[in-house]
């Protein structure tokens, strides 16, 4: 028995030596990546800059000051921004081994996202107004397209950052990148669009966030696993 285990140990030592030999043959300086905090800060700065620029071109909605003075509107915009920033941090930290956020963080972030989707029903539904999803979608097609198109800028940037790290759950990482980027874009369009009706907010401003979160989960599963190829 001892002979067998000693042979096995010898085999493993040889196996290890061969592996090390092969790995050393492929050694070259590793690509440098920024610290997670720096990555997040850079993304936030660049994305806010881009959104600011887009908003300058699109113009803020008339009477934006009074809109921001109302608690529900302010809360919606604030939570959209907070959710976007936290989701970006989750995407980045999930792609750096040993940086995983605590479970409480992910639960908190998920609650913010769920609450954002409930907010139109809770605070913006007008009495007697029948919510017709198809009509709301058709009438809000412009906002839907804008949220979808604008969201690609922060998503590409965040995706590029994350793809340089080493994500072990690329699908999840992808979903967080999508949620983050398209929430930011949704917030930007909500600052431009004067329509605060529940159906419009849901079908034109929030639906693209949900769709692209799912889509980027699939895209991320491919893109963010490339480091292992």
């Amino acid at each position, binding site marked *: 028995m001892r002979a067998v285990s000693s042979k096995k140990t010898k085999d493993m030592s040889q*196996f290890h030596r*061969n592996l090390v030999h092969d*790995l050393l043959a492929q*050694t070259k300086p590793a690509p*440098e990546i920024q610290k997670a905090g720096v990555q997040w800060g850079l993304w936030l700065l660049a994305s806010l800059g881009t959104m600011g620029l887009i908003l300058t071109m699109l113009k803020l909605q008339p009477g934006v000051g009074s809109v921001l003075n109302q608690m529900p509107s302010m809360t919606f915009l604030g939570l959209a921004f907070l959710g976007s920033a936290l989701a970006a941090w989750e995407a980045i930290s999930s*792609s750096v081994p040993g940086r995983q956020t605590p479970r409480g963080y992910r639960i908190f972030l998920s609650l913010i996202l769920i609450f954002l989707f409930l907010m139109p029903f809770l605070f913006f539904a007008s009495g007697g107004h029948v919510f017709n999803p198809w009509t709301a979608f058709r009438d809000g097609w412009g906002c839907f397209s804008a949220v979808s198109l604008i969201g690609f800028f922060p998503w590409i940037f965040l995706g590029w950052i994350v793809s340089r790290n080493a994500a072990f759950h690329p699908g999840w990482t992808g979903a967080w990148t999508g949620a983050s980027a398209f929430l930011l874009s949704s917030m930007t369009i909500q600052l431009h669009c004067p329509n605060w009706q529940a159906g419009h907010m849901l079908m034109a401003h929030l639906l693209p966030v949900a769709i692209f979160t799912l889509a980027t989960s699939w895209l991320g599963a491919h893109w963010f696993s490339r480091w292992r190829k």
Partner: protein
Amino acid sequence: MKSKPAAKKSSKSQPWNQEQWESWAQLMVKVQAGDTQAYEQLLNELGPVLLGYVRRRVFNPEIVPDVYQEVLLTFHKARHSYETNRPFGPWLFTVARNSMLDALAKNRRFVEREIPVEELPEKGSTEMDGSLGDDLDQALKALPELNRQAIELLKLRGLTLEEAARELNVSVAALKVRAHRGYRQLREALLKGKN
């Protein structure tokens, strides 16, 4: 920050102290800069740590080499993602754990597709007048696909290790392991046929 205690826990239950972790973290910085000597030292020092980690969690000793290989390859590919100001232990064990789980999942899928060699309807000829060729052909066909591909590329098509590895989209180390297993299975199948 949450994962910091993991390193402490590991260093408490294992004979690696804080200085050891710091020394590995310093070596890792040199590895990221492309220092091959530091890399060799680090791999040799981490080898027993990672092998022990795998052995404690993988109950089938036959697949330990596969899993260990996957862990080292992933370590190699992910080495750029270590942040030098962070503790090394949580990074290392996150890489080890995830790559181990991936390797086990791959192995499970592979085993499900594998055709057991023992079930082949064979009675090999002892003649050397060409009938061995049929036996060899049959034995080759009966190999698990991954091992057969490795042998076909290396021995029948005469590709170099690097060329074959590139064609199969695997590392040279992984290819060597597949080929080695294939040779062994082939030898066993042919001997069985002879007896």
